[in-house]
């Protein structure tokens, strides 16, 4: 087998390719990587892939899939060819992400307090009231630093012109950051020579940054606040990540029944020494399961009285309950306006144009152009319940037409973006596959953005769905400093 067969028939002209130009030449940033892969050749590259797969098994990097046969722990799907971004471009993205989260937090704080944004007519009040993630229980609360969404995972995509857009902001319990770090560990094992020759920004600062951010939320100044990660348990699809983050931060990993709220409205955990007070909880449980006293009565995952303790100011919850009100694809459309309104700045990162079906005029446009658009439910995550117009059958189009007309508030539509592609090892050669990027942004006393993020890749040819629960994979993301 010759080395050339690695790139045989590589067609980078259908979308913006992160590594190759439409003429089939490597972009300047990617020259080293391209010639390295070329030199390595098909057989060696396949060996490295085998090594990566073995490492994933040994390190036990897995995620849980729910199926009719029960829950299966699956090995993390990983493509060994990395995705590269230049540091100068990344700096701009980083600033844009910090700006965005700041504005979102101002907005959430406003929603639960003055509601000035609504009163001044920038957002119809009924969009908040009808939002599935609005929690009236949180009205009047003022979390420290005005920061409700302390951990945010925003999904970025690059279109055919090479422009980076924000596709959505995940403000509830975004996951993936542990895989971002593990991907780098695997790459170090698989391509050690390559990492030495490029100036790649490390990604392992995250747990320390997360720890500091969480510590900054502690209700009372304390030398060593007691921090815990609250997980729904081993059957949750992101359990691996919950354990990973607790371990890397050196904090307790707790489940609901490890915690108890006493009569003093403080949260305690059950330890071998007795009850110990908890100051900050990084909760990876959805709002509705947090506290059976306030939300779902049947929740066995949460802690009775947790909301009481939070409202009394005795414990910090990250993200704060109710923060999800801004994690709604309808509210998303208003983020550029929020940035202007709260920060008096122009948005650094653009939004994808979004049609709100709740608006009769826009609804009309959506219904007449359904076959060209991507339709998304306003409150779902994980890529479920979506319609990709150009890929949909007549039957699916009809079905969505009905769904949208029945519940216009529940749907938004966006033009189908030609997501950028990246070379991906398929069998024994490279093929372009669509990718997105999920960086993680922290906001407590200070803001922080991961160096890159988790690049997700749709492993099926032509597919735009990158979610790991639906056949997506991932890649290591290299932010490269080209300045000497």
């Amino acid at each position, binding site marked *: 087998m010759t080395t050339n067969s690695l790139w045989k028939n590589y067609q980078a002209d259908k979308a913006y390719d992160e590594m190759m130009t439409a003429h089939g030449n490597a972009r300047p940033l990617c020259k080293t990587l391209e010639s390295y892969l070329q030199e390595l050749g098909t057989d060696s590259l396949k060996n490295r892939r085998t090594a990566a797969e073995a490492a994933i098994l040994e390190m036990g990097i897995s995620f849980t899939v729910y199926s009719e046969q029960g829950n299966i722990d699956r090995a993390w799907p990983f493509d060994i060819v990395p995705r590269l971004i230049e540091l100068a471009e990344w700096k701009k993205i980083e600033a844009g992400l910090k700006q965005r989260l700041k504005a979102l937090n101002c907005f959430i704080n406003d929603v639960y307090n003055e509601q000035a944004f609504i009163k001044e007519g920038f957002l119809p009040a009924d969009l908040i009231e009808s939002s599935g993630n609005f929690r009236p229980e949180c009205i009047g609360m003022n979390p420290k630093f005005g920061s409700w969404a302390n951990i945010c995972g925003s999904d970025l995509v690059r279109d055919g012109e090479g422009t980076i857009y924000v596709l959505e902001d995940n403000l509830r319990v975004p996951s993936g950051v542990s895989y971002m770090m593990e991907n780098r560990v695997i790459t170090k094992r698989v391509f050690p020579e390559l990492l030495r020759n490029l100036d790649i920004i490390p990604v392992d600062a995250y747990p320390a940054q997360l720890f500091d951010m969480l510590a900054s939320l502690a209700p009372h100044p304390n030398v060593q606040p007691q921090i815990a990660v609250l997980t729904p348990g081993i059957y949750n699809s992101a359990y691996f990540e919950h354990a990973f983050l607790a371990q890397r931060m050196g904090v307790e990993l707790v489940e609901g029944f490890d915690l108890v709220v006493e009569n003093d409205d403080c949260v305690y955990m059950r330890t*071998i020494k007795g009850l110990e007070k908890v100051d900050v909880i990084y909760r990876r449980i959805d709002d509705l399961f947090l506290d059976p006293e306030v939300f779902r009565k049947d929740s066995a995952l949460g802690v009775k009285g947790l909301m009481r303790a939070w409202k009394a100011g005795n414990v910090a919850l990250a993200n704060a309950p109710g923060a999800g009100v801004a994690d709604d694809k309808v509210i998303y459309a208003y983020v550029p306006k929020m940035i202007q309104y709260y920060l008096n700045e122009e948005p650094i990162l653009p939004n994808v144009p979004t049609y709100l079906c709740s608006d009769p005029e826009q609804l009309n446009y959506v219904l007449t152009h359904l076959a060209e658009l991507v339709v998304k439910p306003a409150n779902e995550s994980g890529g479920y319940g979506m319609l990709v117009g150009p890929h949909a059958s007549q039957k699916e189009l009809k079905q969505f037409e009905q769904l949208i007309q029945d519940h216009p508030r529940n749907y938004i539509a966006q033009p189908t973006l030609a997501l950028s592609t990246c070379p991906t090892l398929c069998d024994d050669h490279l093929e372009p596959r669509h990718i997105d990027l999920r960086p993680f942004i922290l906001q407590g006393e200070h803001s922080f953005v991961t160096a890159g993020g988790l690049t997700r890749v749709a492993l099926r040819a032509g597919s735009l769905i990158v979610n790991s629960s639906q056949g997506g994979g991932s890649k290591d993301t290299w932010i490269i400093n080209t300045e000497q």
Partner: protein
Amino acid sequence: MLSRSAERLYWLARYLERTENIARLVSVTMNLIYDLPRGTEVGWHNLLTICGVEDEFKQRFKNTTEQNITRFLLADLHNPSSLLSSLSYARENIRISRELMPDEAWEFVNELYLYATKNIETISNRQGREVFLQDIIRGCQRFTGFMAGAMSRNDSRRFIVMGRNLERADMTSRIMDFGTVLLSENRNSLLREYEGIVWLNVLKSLSATSMYRKQVRRRIKGEEVLDFLLNNNESPRSVCHCLQKISYKITELPHATGLQLELKTLIEKLTALNLLTTTPQLASINTLPKPGF
């Protein structure tokens, strides 16, 4: 540390120690068979008695052949105390306790589990089985060694050490039984001539042969071997040593009184049966504070 985590770590240690001990037990039985004259009734079925799984075995297999018994003890996931079951419980426990352990601890156990599941079929012949068992023993020792060199001497570790020593004392007592049962069943036969070999193998199964010889510079005799395995406080697998370890760990833990009393009762029972001869180290257990102290 969380009470729930303490329980997991205690069981993690027990399951891993059990994994290693089953491997030792099966390995020593094979070794013994090579040494004994043909026609000697060395019962693989004795292993079932020692492990206390005769009834479970009968539900799964008809004949007490070497094949069936080794498969049941090593590979059968329907047998909750088989090597593979123990190892997979250990893996499940450490998987959900990763935040309490040194970084690579989980990987060591996970790798061993992957090795075991991948190679379990090699146990069908004696040669493959021996290699498999030695690798399992080494894998367990690697974990124990790593923990000794990397884990802080904190409460998490105390629960691990307690679990390991409890399981170890348990298995040492079972292995002692193995020698005794074997010899008493074959009193009439020529096996008595081979008594020394049986006891030698018992020591071997606990990696204790050289250490025993250093201590007891005489021909190997059953009574002395038993005494060594029960009372030699310098030998880390002796019942006495394991109990002492447990006692030390207990006193370092909060709210220890209940456990201390349990241990004291146990030691009194063993002493009354003339099994444990009082040693200075154990005497200190006997003078533990009374409840409420």
